[in-house]
């Protein structure tokens, strides 16, 4: 183990990391911002013809224009994305993340640029699932480590609190498209996904799915920085504020999502959020 650490330390030294200074200053000095994206969240960030596009890409180009820097964009699976940020492998998580209690303990969130709801999606031929209580004994799927992962567990707890049996099982997949494939192929009975994802599924294969109901409060979509990178977060928020004020965000929502959703400047964070305590 010592050997690995030594090798790695050496390696990291080679790659070069000056992590004492302010991240925003460093970005500006190097002329490059490195962001991580999970490009499997249509229409916010996804890959088409080998390129990452979507709502987030438009926002990212606005942000980098404001900063006057180049973008290096990494594509990685969602469960690694926040921990990679903590490990300083990139400056910013430029992928849609919902500020929930678990995450807000460790990460700072930008002003949201869209609102989503937790929707329950079933195959189009299913007539049995109409409301929450119908999910008792049902095999439910969602994405591992996503906001809906936490929501799903909350739903299950609520079902049991009401005296139901709860889900027959909660199956966790590596990405949202994975949940859709598995719903389509009958591997699960229902999936819990963000409304935007559900709309996207409906667009891609309109005959396969039905959106049944929504659960809980609307959730917001933000980008994420390390809590100590206040200057970077402020820069990002000022870009988002500018775009909201000019109506550009609404335009982008229309273009990519198809519907508009308002997002607040404050109050989108859970009470325990680390950035509120600073």
């Amino acid at each position, binding site marked *: *183990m010592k*050997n*690995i*650490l030594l*090798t*790695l*330390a050496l*390696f*990291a030294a080679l*790659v*070069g*990391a*000056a*992590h004492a200074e302010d991240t925003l200053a460093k970005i500006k000095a190097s002329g490059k911002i*490195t962001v*991580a994206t999970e*490009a*499997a969240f*249509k229409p916010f960030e*996804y*890959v*088409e*013809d*080998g390129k990452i596009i979507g709502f987030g890409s438009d926002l990212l180009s606005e942000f980098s224009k404001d900063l006057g820097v180049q973008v290096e964009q*990494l*594509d*990685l*699976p969602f469960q*690694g994305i926040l*921990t*990679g940020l*903590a*490990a*300083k*492998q*990139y*400056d910013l998580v430029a992928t849609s993340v919902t500020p929930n209690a678990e995450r807000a303990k460790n990460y700072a969130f930008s002003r949201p640029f869209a609102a989503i709801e937790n929707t329950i999606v079933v195959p189009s031929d299913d007539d049995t699932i109409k409301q929450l209580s119908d999910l008792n004994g049902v095999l439910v799927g969602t994405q591992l480590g996503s906001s809906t992962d936490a929501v799903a567990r909350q739903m299950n707890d609520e079902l049991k609190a009401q005296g139901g049996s709860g889900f027959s099982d909660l199956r966790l997949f590596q*990405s949202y*498209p994975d949940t*859709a*494939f598995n719903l389509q*192929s009958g591997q699960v009975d229902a999936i819990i996904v963000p409304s935007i994802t559900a709309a996207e599924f409906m667009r*891609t*294969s309109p005959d396969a799915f039905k959106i049944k109901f929504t659960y809980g409060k609307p959730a917001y979509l933000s980008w994420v920085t390390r809590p100590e990178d206040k200057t970077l977060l402020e820069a990002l928020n000022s870009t988002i504020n500018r775009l909201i004020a000019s109506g550009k965000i609404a335009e982008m929502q229309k273009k990519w999502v198809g519907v508009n959703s308002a997002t607040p400047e404050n109050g989108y964070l859970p009470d325990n959020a680390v950035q509120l305590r600073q």
Partner: protein
Amino acid sequence: MKYILSGIETVPLLLDGLLTTLAICGLASILAIAGAVVIVAARRSHQRWITAVAMLYVTLMRGLPIVILVFLLYFGIPALLDLGRISAFWVGILALAMNGAAFQSEVLRGAIASLPKGQMEGSHALGLNRFQMWRLVLVPQVLPVALPALAGEIGFLIKASPVLSLITVVDLTRRSQQVTMQTFDPLGPLLAAGALYFLLIGTIGWMSRMLEARLTVGKSR
């Protein structure tokens, strides 16, 4: 059948992923062989602790899944040591090389062990120094034995490389997943990626067999 057709259509979309896989495996192989030589040298060292460290390293690498090694290197250790940004591409190469070096050092050790004892004694008797002995006498004999097996190890390296799709690297595997998410075709891109891997690994295996056949020609048995 329909998926085979869609898979064939997918192939051009996967080529940049294939290139990344090739680049990673190529670089990792070179590093692995260099690392293997260092490990073998360490294991032959007269300093007991160097030998012990080398052995411990090989044991660790043989016991740890490459998936966990990559997660530790990419997520775990940077978080622990508060390292700055590290590149998934290079971490991937490092992980494959670290793993490959351990296995290839075993191949080299085996090849060296297969040399007749008299070769070293003969070299000493002729007054060759250590370096000359290795360069002039031993290496030319070790290489033909070790090369085919080392080439085979590169095949293993390629088979392990999809692990990098689990971190940021857009290699052949991740590229095929991206295409799947884009086209909602659950099988075609995977079949295409599988076929490309098969061709790649099969070619390496074929080359290693050719090499073996060529190198054993003219050797008296």
